[in-house]
């Protein structure tokens, strides 16, 4: 079995994995990182989104072996020393989650989105989150939350 070394949420792991093991199953079943969810079997829902080497990816579309040598951030590693990331705060204050099942993926996809485009319009947020499905919120408050977080991050950066 191939051996991989991955840094997940700041901790280095070295493991032997089956070649067919998906990154999302590696995270959930092997590392116990159950903050990352699975919502589909066709790579459509985005519930499993994590950030890998700075880019948001659906972790059900990546094999664990492909993550060898990578740096992976999941929702569990997003807060900085217990201080919530602006996206986590904004999802909370703007009521951008209901059941919260899509939320880890939605937030991690938004991390990627804002890295690409720090000041997106409503339309750009909607397009940017196209690959993430939410059945509860109707998306409006998610759009609002991402823009609120963007503003806060912008403020933080220019302060």
């Amino acid at each position, binding site marked *: 079995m191939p051996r991989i070394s991955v840094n997940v949420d700041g901790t280095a792991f070295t493991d032997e994995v089956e070649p067919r093991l998906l990154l999302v199953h590696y995270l959930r079943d092997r590392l116990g990182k159950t903050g990352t969810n699975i919502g589909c079997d066709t790579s459509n829902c985005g519930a499993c989104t994590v950030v890998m080497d700075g880019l948001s990816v659906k972790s059900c579309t990546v094999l664990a072996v492909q993550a060898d040598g990578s740096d992976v951030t999941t929702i*569990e590693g997003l807060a900085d020393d217990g201080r919530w990331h602006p996206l986590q705060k904004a999802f909370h204050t703007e009521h951008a*989650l209901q059941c*919260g099942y899509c939320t880890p993926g939605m937030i991690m996809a938004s991390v990627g989105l804002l890295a690409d485009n720090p000041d997106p319009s409503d339309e750009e947020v909607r397009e940017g989150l196209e690959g993430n499905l939410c059945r509860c919120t109707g*998306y409006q408050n998610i759009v609002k939350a991402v823009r609120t977080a963007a503003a806060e991050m912008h403020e933080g950066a220019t302060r």
Partner: protein
Amino acid sequence: MTDVAERSEANVGRVLHRKEDAKLVTGQSTWTDDIQLPGMLHIGVLRSPMAHARLARVDVAPALEQPGVVAAYSGADLADEWVMGLPCAWPVTEDMVAPDHWPVATDEVRFAGDTVAVVVARDRFSAADALEHVDVDYEPLEPVVDMEEALRDEVLVHSEHGTNKCFVWPLETGDVDAAFSGADVVVKRRYIQQRLIPNAIEPRAVVVDPTTASGEYTLYSATQVPHFVRIQMALVLGIPEHRLRVVAPDVGGGFGSKLNVYAEEAIALAVARRLGRPVKWTETRSENYQATIHGRDQIQDIEIAASSDGVLRGLRIDLKADMGAYLQLLTPGIPLLGAFMYCGIYKMDAYSFTCTGVFTDKTPTDAYRGAGRPEATFAIERIMDDLAAELGVDPMELRRRNWIQHSEFPYDTVAGLTYDTGNYEAATDRAMELFGYDELRAEQARRRESGDRVQLGIGISTYTEMCGLAPSRVLGSLRYGAGGWEAATVRLLPTGKVEVVTGISPHGQGHETGFSQIAADALGVDFDDVDILHGDTRVAPTGLDTYGSRSLAVGGVAVHKAAERLIDKMRRFAAHELEAAEDDIEFDRGTFRVRGDPDSSTTIQDLSLSVFTAHDLPEGVDPSTAAEYVFDPENFSFPHGTHLCAVEVDTDTGAVHVRNYTCVDDCGTIVNPQLVEGQIHGGITQGMAQALWEEAIYDELGNLTTGTIVDYYVPGAPDVPHFTTDTTQTPATTNPLGVKGVGEAGTIASTPAVVNAVLDAVRHLGVDDIRMPCSPERVWRAVHDAGQQTGQDLSDDTAGGRL
């Protein structure tokens, strides 16, 4: 100790950010599939690829030889695990046909996805792999997929019953024949409610932790209804109810799809009992499309009678409702929830409703957000537009002429309900103003005039719904198998913190927040000092769970009542401690005072500690600081609202663009405006999805051709417009909080608003019907066909004219 000044502001009515969110935005929630137990095994379920077949042979032996496999069972192997089949708790008529529904099929499979065998392995992948090695001989039988064909009884889903007709359920009030024969105008239509797939983003999952030595079981399930599951599973498996604990951990949405009792819950319990090991089953999304209930799937034949001035006389509904292959928990009752809603907010003389339940070889249907009421609302709101077109009056004007005036409440409707309160005028006026109704009508006229390629349509839905399910006596009269009450316990802890136990089982709605607001106000304690406990039959043994927009209107009221009862109880302790008569004790915002003696007071927190020590109690009073209340509502509640939708329809391509969606909802007293807004947004989106995008399609062989989330279009962020929402608050008069419920309103309202808008855009071109979902192809065909019929060239500026 809480400062009185700090909590002087009421919590109810304010935006307080959700208590639920912290674990959800940090990945610390516990979904059922997250649960790992020592020695846990994984279950895979083999599902029939055929819609109808006899199982000539099911041989699990080859699967047993696969790596990691611990056990494998056919339906026959597990048959002695069941005391009874999976239950239907709503036998709607005395003579309803209720076929056996075993958790694993033994002789025949009746829909693609029916369970055939079970494999148990050390991990989920080995279980999935081994399923392919179960050897099954399917002898194909003819399937019946179409409801009307099924009603001919030529091909039977359950041959032993000799018919595909499950039940016929009639309701008639007033002189219907007179209403129709005396009418100037009668409009008759057939509307098709396509089948929908609920798609909660968390798939279902089940974990069972057995202690076989003592016969105790803990069942974790991604369910909306742990209490229902406990009772029904106790019956199906013969486990004494007190030995079965059911836990709904964090649950990722339900929308009715988790308001059920499923085969996999029974299978997991049976396997755990056999093997004495913890087991888990987790659904894949594609499996969910076959194994979790579907919604809607009805044919509505509707006729409305009116006088020439547009005053409604009567309404006739002949409804056919697809049950699918078996009856799940509430399957036959769902269309009947619509029986009382077809008249909507309108007055009329007579009403007749007949529903025929029909078996087909498809996945069973059951509650999907709104459950019977969206279908009814769609039909009445659409036919109001069709009637307006027939009469040549503005559709809002027609509604105004017929709706129940604010001054007429309480009002007994033609369908036999009493609407306690409402203000359709206020909600409509506000919605029309926000929407810019007159300006949009003017633009529409301009576009029609100029024969613009892009036409504008305006859709209206002035809906009401019955929610707060439900008065137990009414449920009894409808032959429902349970009551509609809800329980709450409010408990003061020695340090003055508060635990509220509710029988409601939230899965995204924010009840922990809303109920905390209610309890905090009733007890005069801090919002943060209240915790809401739920979703575990050992913690909250009494309850009837979450569905039918009942949680606040029944469960929230129970919390309020239990808190009041606790205050009454504490008043006796206060009187004793303050050495005053009980009647002289006043309670205000957390403090007990002796009337007329402002210095003589104690806080509820101090009192809780002194009762806990029990050193000095009034004679004959036990030192309890908890109170329970079981609230059985006297009536349903009736939220209402006005939803307005403007769409642009490209007549060349059939593409529909939602340009403006504005609504004003009245859900009574609002506990937390942010939660209300969230429910409305999500609800509208699901209803709009039925109007424009979603449809579960079966081919004639009974294959679900929209079998994955790739083929079934769940809308994403770019599809959905920005909504403009507002509220009016006309408090319900049938409960002390004045609340009505809001969980389903958006879904019930939005489907007809959107479809009416699409039709309004092209009605002048000769189109009077487009089936849902109004895809570009369907819209284009409708416009194209109408153009051919009337000989109009669509590019011709002179085309059109009101029909």
